[in-house]
């Protein structure tokens, strides 16, 4: 808006150049895109990426490069939808597709989220026990800290703390460098598609699907749209929200690549991969105690980021559908249902993890595969809503090129899901 009779409000900041205005506006808008992307590098992602590196070296790095535009285009659509409608994803599905599809999507989301949350706390338990802290202390303490993070009734406080946690992920670059990877072959494998052993095997297929499932997860769609709506981003903020999402996508793919490089150290030294916490111990004699301690701590950081984002996506979605107040601006007494769902997610998953003999690597891989299976249906709803001219108008509806890109993504995701399904029926479809 431009006008000489407008007065600055108490909440506004006055700057004297367009460049400063743009920078300040971006800094005010940045958050949902970066957080949704970096929170996706959660404990399951740490496990999947390091496993990919440990089993296949740097051979699967090119997949990360392919996943970058996919992650960006999908999340850009939800950011656009959130800004234009001011509503969350679950609410939109209920309104535009009816109760059946709405309930189906919500049930899927809550199930996949809860299973994923179990893996987050399992990772905290594993990593902290390797650092000498009992799971019976680490897990409840983490749960209480995660509740405290949200229950302050301040969106900005939550966002600033979480962005800080996201930025801690630069430690992965230091860890990757400390593992002394072969940079030349890593760079080559990042841009030249190739298969590890020159053939497709069952474990490779599962790992590729898990990589896709961990990089683009259904909860991300719900989270970013609700987050954008909760932050009350305006139409004029769309370009900055896109930049936020793009930066987040690049950062998360780079961090994911660094995780593969850390796993690659195990591949080069012929170490048997069990899980990321064991990898940390095994790498200590080779890469030093920094890698060991940093890997364990960053596992915890990844799990904390994942837990707060995933639990919030559940709480926002449930609040939207039930019509409850659902905002991080609100105090607990003003939005009790929203905060209770968040707390139930956190405490429920933490409680399950304290049950002895959890087969963690299997649970983590299953969750990623489950997410890979569910994602195609979530993307279909997204694609239909982004072509909903009645809702979005001509200005914000998908352009033809958007649709081409999205249909390619949809076909890719469906194909991977069908391959996964066929492998269940025909286990010998690919060599072991």
């Amino acid at each position, binding site marked *: 808006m431009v006008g000489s009779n*407008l007065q600055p409000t108490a909440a506004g900041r006055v700057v004297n150049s367009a460049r400063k205005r743009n920078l300040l*506006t971006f800094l005010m808008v940045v958050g949902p895109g970066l957080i949704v992307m970096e929170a996706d590098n959660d404990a399951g992602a740490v496990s999947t990426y390091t496993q990919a590196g440990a089993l296949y070296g740097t051979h699967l790095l090119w997949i990360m490069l392919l996943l970058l535009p996919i992650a960006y285009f999908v999340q850009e659509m939800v950011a656009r939808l959130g800004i234009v*409608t001011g*509503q969350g994803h679950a609410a939109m599905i209920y309104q535009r*597709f009816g109760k059946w599809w709405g309930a189906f999507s919500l049930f899927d989301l809550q199930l996949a989220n809860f299973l994923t949350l179990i893996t987050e706390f399992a990772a905290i338990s594993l990593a902290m026990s390797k650092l000498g802290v009992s799971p019976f202390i680490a897990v409840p303490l983490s749960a209480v800290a995660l509740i405290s993070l949200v229950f302050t009734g301040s969106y900005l406080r939550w966002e600033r703390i979480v962005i800080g946690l996201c930025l801690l992920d630069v430690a992965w670059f230091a860890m990757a460098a400390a593992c002394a990877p072969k940079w030349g072959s890593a760079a080559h494998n990042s841009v030249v598609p190739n298969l590890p052993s020159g053939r497709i095997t069952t474990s490779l297929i599962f790992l590729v699907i898990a990589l896709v499932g961990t990089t683009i997860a259904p909860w991300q769609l719900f989270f970013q749209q609700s987050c954008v709506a909760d932050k009350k981003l305006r139409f004029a903020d769309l370009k900055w929200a896109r930049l936020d999402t793009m930066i987040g996508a690049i950062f998360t793919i780079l961090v994911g690549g660094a995780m593969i490089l850390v796993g690659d150290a195990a591949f080069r030294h012929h170490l048997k991969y069990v899980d990321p916490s064991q990898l940390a111990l095994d790498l200590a004699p080779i890469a030093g105690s920094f890698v060991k301690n940093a890997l364990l701590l960053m596992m915890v950081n990844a799990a904390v980021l994942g837990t707060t984002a995933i639990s919030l996506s559940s709480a926002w979605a449930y609040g939207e559908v039930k019509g409850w107040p659902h905002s991080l601006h609100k105090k607990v007494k003003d939005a009790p249902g929203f905060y209770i769902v968040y707390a139930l997610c956190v405490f429920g998953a933490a409680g399950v993890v304290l049950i002895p003999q959890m087969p963690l690597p299997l649970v983590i891989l299953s969750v990623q595969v489950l997410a890979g299976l569910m994602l195609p249906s979530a993307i279909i709803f997204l694609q239909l809503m982004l072509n909903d001219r009645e*809702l979005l108008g001509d200005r914000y509806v998908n352009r033809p090129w958007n649709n081409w890109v999205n249909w390619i993504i949809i076909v890719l995701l469906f194909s991977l899901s069908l391959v996964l399904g066929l492998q269940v029926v025909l286990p010998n479809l690919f060599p072991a």
Partner: protein
Amino acid sequence: MIALKNDRHIEEFVVIHPLYDEPEQKMSGVELGRMPMSKPVRVSLLLLRGYLILMFMLLGFHILDLAGAFGHH
């Protein structure tokens, strides 16, 4: 974001955090109700139903297989 000109005609901009700005009129789906079932929407939802049915059948098959229902365990 608001552009202002002060007495010295130097352009100044007021940048307001989205949380504290005036609420905007959004395009709400509440009044619109359900999406019209155009051909692309109908076909997409039909394909999605088919995909989900297939996936649940595969899952059921896998569970029965793991339970030894097909006799080769």
